[in-house]
């Protein structure tokens, strides 16, 4: 275990000030729809070039963790995920805000993010080298099953009709196939448009699918857009702590899921939060409340997405393979700083790496006061701002955010058209969440399936490739349990009810 001297070197006034500023900057950038954690890190990387490597790493880690948490603000208050990692936070966070519990949702999100971040960082500190080796055992087939596991969440997201949700998921999967195919290079479903060759950008699509229908409905009536609960001060710490304590298993389980998914290269916070949400719902005694403003849903997603920060650094620092997209940017910054990542980093340059890990701990702890403070004012301002000002301002942010992803006006048009599509589909009883799930997980599922099929064909046993690998079997078991457990519990409940009535 690394010594106390590294903790002390992370506790210098400069390191603390940098961590504080990084968390604040990350939260503010992450809170704006369309500005992802990757963008927050990328935009602020140049500021770290003149810093000492250890301090630079603390700054980048603080920005990253702050931005992941910042995504929860827009998700809870505007139903627009500030970053893709906070998609699942919209499921219960926004209904909570609508019924006047937005401040509670923000407090819970902050507490869960801090706990998730601390657990992810603890894994990074204690188990980085052995866990990185586990990540290397994930092949295309395991990614395929992981994506299917995420897609099973559609069943739990169905608002009304399960069949409509499944159709929505299929529409999302089709949208994920637009552009040049990852394997084979076919140009698919572009309608001859050059601008669609690169596919549909996920961030712009998220903004459109979630935010545009909300904007359209926002202007349709003069009713207030959000209610302020009775005697509410902006954050509800005691109540939030009680919720987190009563959901401690959910909190820890979601943090561990977030860490493990964060370790998998390319998986990221969106998948981590979706998987942990599905698990939280599956194991909850209040399954019927999920999607309607259940605090456990917010706890699960926010703990998981912040745990991916520590988890993602494990393969980044140990193997030089970025676990999440922001890790790739940070990896580049490390190389510029002259830090050589790899197993030797923990020996030859242990001072830098352990100072960074302790710095990440400190930044995560700082997120609590900073997050609660920002949340208090964000919520109160948003509730009090007149609707006539809010709607155009949010519309402007969606335009700006979707443009700034790749500096591309075509993606703004994609965002608006997909938003119009989601609004029309809502009129037919289709919700946006299954479409988003299909869009995000489609390319992972297809890439994993096709590559697994090719590997299986080369080995002469496709079935064994998909169904006989130990990690795959584990994930398949989780999928089956996830699908069958709710059916079994609802049957046994019905049986009990009929026995009682008899």
């Amino acid at each position, binding site marked *: 275990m690394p010594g106390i001297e590294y903790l002390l070197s992370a506790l210098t006034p400069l390191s603390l000030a940098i961590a504080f500023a990084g968390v604040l900057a990350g939260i503010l950038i992450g809170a704006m729809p369309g500005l992802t954690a990757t963008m927050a890190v990328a935009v602020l990387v140049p500021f770290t070039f003149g810093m000492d490597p250890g301090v630079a790493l603390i700054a980048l880690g603080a920005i990253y963790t702050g931005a992941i948490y910042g995504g929860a603000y827009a998700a809870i208050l505007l139903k627009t995920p500030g970053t893709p990692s906070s998609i699942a936070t919209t499921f219960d966070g926004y209904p909570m805000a609508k019924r006047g519990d937005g401040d509670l949702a923000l407090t819970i999100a902050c507490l869960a993010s801090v706990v998730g971040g601390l657990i992810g960082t603890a894994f990074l500190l204690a188990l980085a080298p052995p866990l990185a080796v586990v990540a290397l055992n994930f092949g295309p087939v395991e990614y395929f099953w992981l994506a299917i596991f995420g897609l099973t969440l559609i069943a739990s997201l169905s608002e009304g*009709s399960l069949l409509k949700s499944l159709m929505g998921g299929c*529409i999302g999967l089709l949208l994920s196939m637009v552009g040049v*195919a990852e394997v084979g290079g076919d140009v698919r479903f572009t309608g001859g448009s050059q601008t669609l060759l690169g596919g549909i950008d996920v961030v712009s699509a998220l903004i459109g699918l979630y935010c545009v229908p909300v904007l359209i409905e926002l202007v349709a009536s003069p009713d207030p857009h959000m209610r302020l609960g009775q005697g509410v001060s902006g954050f509800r710490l005691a109540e939030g702590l009680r919720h987190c304590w009563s959901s401690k298993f959910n909190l820890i389980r979601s943090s561990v899921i977030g860490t493990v998914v964060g370790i998998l290269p390319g998986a990221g916070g969106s998948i981590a939060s979706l998987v942990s949400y599905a698990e939280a719902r599956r194991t909850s005694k209040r399954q019927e409340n999920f999607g309607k403003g259940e605090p456990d849903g917010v706890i699960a997603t926010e703990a998981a997405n912040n745990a991916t920060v520590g988890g993602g650094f494990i393969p980044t620092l140990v193997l030089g393979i970025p676990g999440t997209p922001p890790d790739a940017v940070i990896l580049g910054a490390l190389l510029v700083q002259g830090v050589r990542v790899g197993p030797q980093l923990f020996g030859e340059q242990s001072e830098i790496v352990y100072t960074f890990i302790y710095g990440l701990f400190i930044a995560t702890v700082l997120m609590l006061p900073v997050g609660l403070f920002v949340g208090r004012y964000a919520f109160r301002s948003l509730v009090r701002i007149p609707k006539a000002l809010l709607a155009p301002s949010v519309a402007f942010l969606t335009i700006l955010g979707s443009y700034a992803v790749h500096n591309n006006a075509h993606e703004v048009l994609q965002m608006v058209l997909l938003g119009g599509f989601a609004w029309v*589909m809502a009129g037919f009883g289709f919700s946006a969440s299954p479409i988003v799930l299909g869009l995000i997980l489609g390319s992972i599922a297809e890439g994993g399936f096709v590559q697994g099929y090719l590997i299986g064909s080369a080995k002469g046993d496709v079935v064994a490739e998909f169904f006989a690998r130990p990690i795959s079997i584990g994930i398949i078991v989780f999928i089956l349990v996830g699908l069958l457990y709710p059916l079994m519990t609802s049957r046994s409940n019905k049986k009990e009810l009929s026995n009682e009535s008899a």
Partner: protein
Amino acid sequence: MNPLEQRVVDMRGVIASVGVFVVGVLVIMASSEFDALGAVFPRAIATLMMVLAVCYVFFALRRPSRGVQIPAGSQWRRVAMFGVMLAWALLLEPLGFLATSLLCYGAALLISNYDRWTPRMALLYCGSGAVILVGLFLLFRLVLQVPLPSGILI
């Protein structure tokens, strides 16, 4: 269930399902131009879509449901807001980011406001809007170095 709750055939759902089925057919037809590896996933998904659409129509006709609730409110404002968003996206490059944003922000402001306009309110709303737009424009263009489109205006 409330016995007074009226159960009807979800015709909107049936129409949408027919649309989904047609999309499935079109995807299968389009996938004939792809190579085997590129076609397998679209075909599988399209087939699943078609099966789900048929199932939905079957169940919707057999078992009437509560149907889709149409939200109350002003339909023209909804359509106008979407029109403004569309115009915003289309005019960004020809007119320029700031000019388009000022124009469309103003239009969205008119659509969103239900109160009677007073000189004080107009000044407050337009002033706040201008500060937000120009402030974020300068932040992105000058500080974050995002090349926002200039167009023929700015």
